[in-house]
């Protein structure tokens, strides 16, 4: 299965999203999706206990939960700082 090579490209291009908090979140989603695609691709060979597809489902659910929490945090941060550029949120710095 040549999927693996293609899917990691997605995750890897996603690593360089560093412009906006929401875009960073989309990058994280890409990486999670790359992992899910790998799960599914190898789950094709695992008929007996279906590990690949089950864990792909769990990973999708966890990603959705993570996105919900992250968006709530982004909204809160925006309320405090009036921006969602992670480079400008530097209150924790010395």
């Amino acid at each position, binding site marked *: *299965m040549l*999927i*693996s*090579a*293609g*899917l*990691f*490209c*997605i995750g*890897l*291009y996603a*690593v*360089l*999203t*560093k*412009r*906006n908090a*929401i*875009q960073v*979140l*989309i990058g994280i*989603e*890409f990486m999670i*999706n790359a992992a*899910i*695609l790998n799960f*599914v*691709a190898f*789950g*094709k*060979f*695992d*008929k007996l*206990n*279906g590990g*690949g*597809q*089950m*864990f*792909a*489902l*769990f990973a*999708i*659910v*966890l990603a*959705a*939960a*993570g*996105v*919900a*929490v992250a*968006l*709530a*945090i*982004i*909204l*809160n941060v*925006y309320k405090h700082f009036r921006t*969602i550029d992670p*480079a400008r949120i530097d209150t924790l710095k010395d």
Partner: protein
Amino acid sequence: MSAEQLIFYFFGALTLVSAFLVVSMQNIVRSIFLFFVTIFSLAAMFVFALADFIAVTQVVIYAGGVLVLMLFAFMLSNRELLSGLQSVKGSFKLNHFAGLILALGFLFLIVTAINQTDILQLSWLRQNPGIGENDNTIHQIGIHTMTGYLLPFEMVSIFLMMALIGAAHLARKEKKS
């Protein structure tokens, strides 16, 4: 090259190109809507791996839930960004370059690793029976969820509840007192 392979490579290319466009797009609204394309073509790839239930779940959760949430948060948080694009600062440019180098290096590493492993010759892949086109995977998934994977299933459900409560708590308005 058969038609099936052709469609597979088409969707693979569509996934990669749209993902790259999402990442490199300046306008965030456009990139979020392009994310739709990526999600749907990823679902098509899942169908090619004979995981139709995962594909449907992907479309429902991502296109139905996550993207709407993202658009919602974007509209709420984005008054000044909507009009003008962010100016490129010097430090930001350096960050971008370093990120590009890092990502390309990692991509090179993974591709060489994949080339060296020779995936189709792995022993456990050859021994296990693969899923056939006529197998009822949804039936299998239901049975596995309630038998072998019951503990992770319950953990995921509790985690999801915690996440939703936490998100609602974080996003609620503070009472003025």
